[in-house]
């Protein structure tokens, strides 16, 4: 095992997969120096600030036998390219009856927490989950980002990777050897028996910290990170809730129509799991406001340990 950062793990995943497959192309508005150095400017391309043609080009490359990475940087910039993601990338395999594959990786950074205000802070994955045809990964750890990105880079479909801006510096271990992580397999990041806590992206770390603190009080929290939102590992979540009888979903995204709402629905609409519920499932989500600039307000709208703890206490 080696200890590297989240950002480094992502870079390694790309490097390794670019080595494996010479027909892989990177498109971004800013130069990816490490890729340019190793693979040349033909394969690691700088585009104008034109996200729509950036994503569209990735689709055209993919439909022509290449594998393309479209790096949009912040998820808020993705909205200018939304048609290419929602009407094109997501639907093109289906509309054409599966004639061609479209291996595309779209990268976007998400999250609030550094006072960049509403137009540079968002966790929009639920919007994309409502669009069938897009796979979605949400890596929260160093190990996961490398493994999931590598899997995404071998998948034959459009995959969106939502990477939290605040995780870039996180450090963690990765194996020396090549590895991938299958999409659709949740990670039980901590076992527990009183409450199931499903946490997404950066919130996984908050959830683990809370679980640790509560353990001291004798409360045993199971922390599940779905890691990929499409496909979503319903079984793992339901199984845990069947065991604990209690569910809290922690998600930085705005609450309404969130991934958290989906997870609660998946749990409550399943007869077996529903019948095991000892208390109403809870969401600890971002508040339904645009993200404010000033730190006191910004912190207020994002879930934190205290809010998570309060929610768990309510359940017990």
């Amino acid at each position, binding site marked *: 095992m080696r200890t590297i950062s989240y950002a480094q793990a992502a870079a390694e995943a790309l490097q390794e997969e670019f080595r494996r497959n010479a027909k892989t192309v990177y498109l971004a508005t800013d130069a990816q120096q490490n890729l340019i150095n190793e693979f040349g400017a033909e394969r690691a391309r700088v585009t104008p600030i034109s996200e729509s043609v950036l994503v569209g*080009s990735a689709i055209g490359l993919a439909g022509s036998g290449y594998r393309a990475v479209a790096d949009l940087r912040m998820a808020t910039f993705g909205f200018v390219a939304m048609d290419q993601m929602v009407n094109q990338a997501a639907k093109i*395999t289906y509309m*054409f*009856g599966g*004639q061609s594959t479209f291996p595309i990786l779209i990268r976007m950074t998400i999250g609030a927490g550094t006072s960049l205000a509403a137009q540079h802070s968002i966790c929009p994955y639920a919007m994309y989950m409502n669009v069938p045809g897009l796979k979605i990964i949400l890596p929260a750890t160093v190990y996961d980002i490398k493994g999931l990105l590598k899997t995404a880079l071998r998948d034959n479909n459009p995959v969106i990777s939502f990477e939290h801006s605040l995780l870039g510096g996180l450090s963690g271990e990765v194996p020396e050897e090549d590895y991938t992580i299958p999409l659709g397999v949740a990670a039980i990041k901590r076992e527990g028996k009183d409450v199931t806590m499903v946490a997404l992206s950066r919130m996984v770390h908050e959830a683990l910290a809370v679980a640790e603190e509560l353990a001291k009080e004798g409360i045993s929290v199971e922390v599940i990170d779905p890691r990929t939102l499409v496909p979503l590992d319903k079984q793992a979540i339901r199984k845990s809730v069947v065991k604990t009888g209690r569910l809290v979903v922690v998600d930085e995204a705005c609450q309404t129509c969130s991934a958290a709402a989906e997870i609660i629905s998946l749990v409550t609409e399943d007869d077996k799991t529903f019948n095991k519920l000892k208390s109403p499932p809870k969401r600890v989500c971002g508040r339904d406001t645009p993200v404010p600039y000033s730190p006191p307000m910004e912190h207020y709208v994002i879930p934190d340990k205290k809010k998570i703890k309060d929610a768990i206490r309510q359940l017990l």
Partner: protein
Amino acid sequence: MSIDNESLIQMYRTMLTIRRFDERASQDFKKGLVPGLVHSYNGQEAIATGVCANLRKDDRIVSNHRGHGHLIAKGADIKRMMAEIYGKKTGYCKGKGGSMHIADFSIGILGANGIVAAGLPIATGAALAAHLEGKGRIVVVFFGDGACQEGEFQESLNLASIWKLPLIFACENNQYGVNTPYTYAIAGGDIPKRAAAYDMPTKSVDGNDLFAVYETTKEVAEKVRTGGGPYFVEYKTYRWSSHFEADTIPDLRPKEEIASWKKQCPILRLQKKLLETGILTEPMINDIEKQVMANIEQAADYAAASPLPEPEDAMADVFSA
């Protein structure tokens, strides 16, 4: 004339196939045999035909909502096209796409598109693939005057230009987007001028003159194929039918204008030339008409006889394996 007789006859046949195909699709739509919508290509046949006659099988095209002509000209199987339009399992997309989403990747048809201008970015990517491959392939993207109003138009022209991609922007200026004249919606009314502003060579030709379309595209395709970078060609034309074959949107274009353009029928113009030069004779024309009609009939029969998809087929193809 640099085109050999056989090619000319072949193009005549293609144009006629396109015309008869869309006439049939429209009729069948009105009879209720075709669900959805049909955007007829009637009146624009010389463009798809003259352009695609300059393409290799491995060249790629990207089409739009008015795409039947492009697909036929690029060599699509009209049986599978008709079956798709009928919503049948034997269609190109197994009935999942319909008229606006036919594709045949095996012969370089990357698909029609229902979103105005959305094909331009995709074609730009396909042209990048062609560039990276370095096998002399080129890409043609077909789009209307209406598409020139969308932001993706400029983004695609700009990117293709800075990367010198092997891409022909084939603008079919049929003068209207639905009922809005391009003279209203395109500031200045000069579409090629826009492309020139993106540092791209341009041409503008009579899209109802097969010879002009063919010769111009030939010259352009050679330049693009040999590394000259993208080219923009405006093909001036007119659509004969209303926006689509349903009366939910009225056709507000002047009746006389429609009538005068019908006099510019690209097929009759070609026919006349070919008769004059003796390349075609009346009997040959009748033969071709019969063969084309027989093919269309066969395609429609195939479509009609084909099974509908099973309801559950809807669940397949959301993702590829």
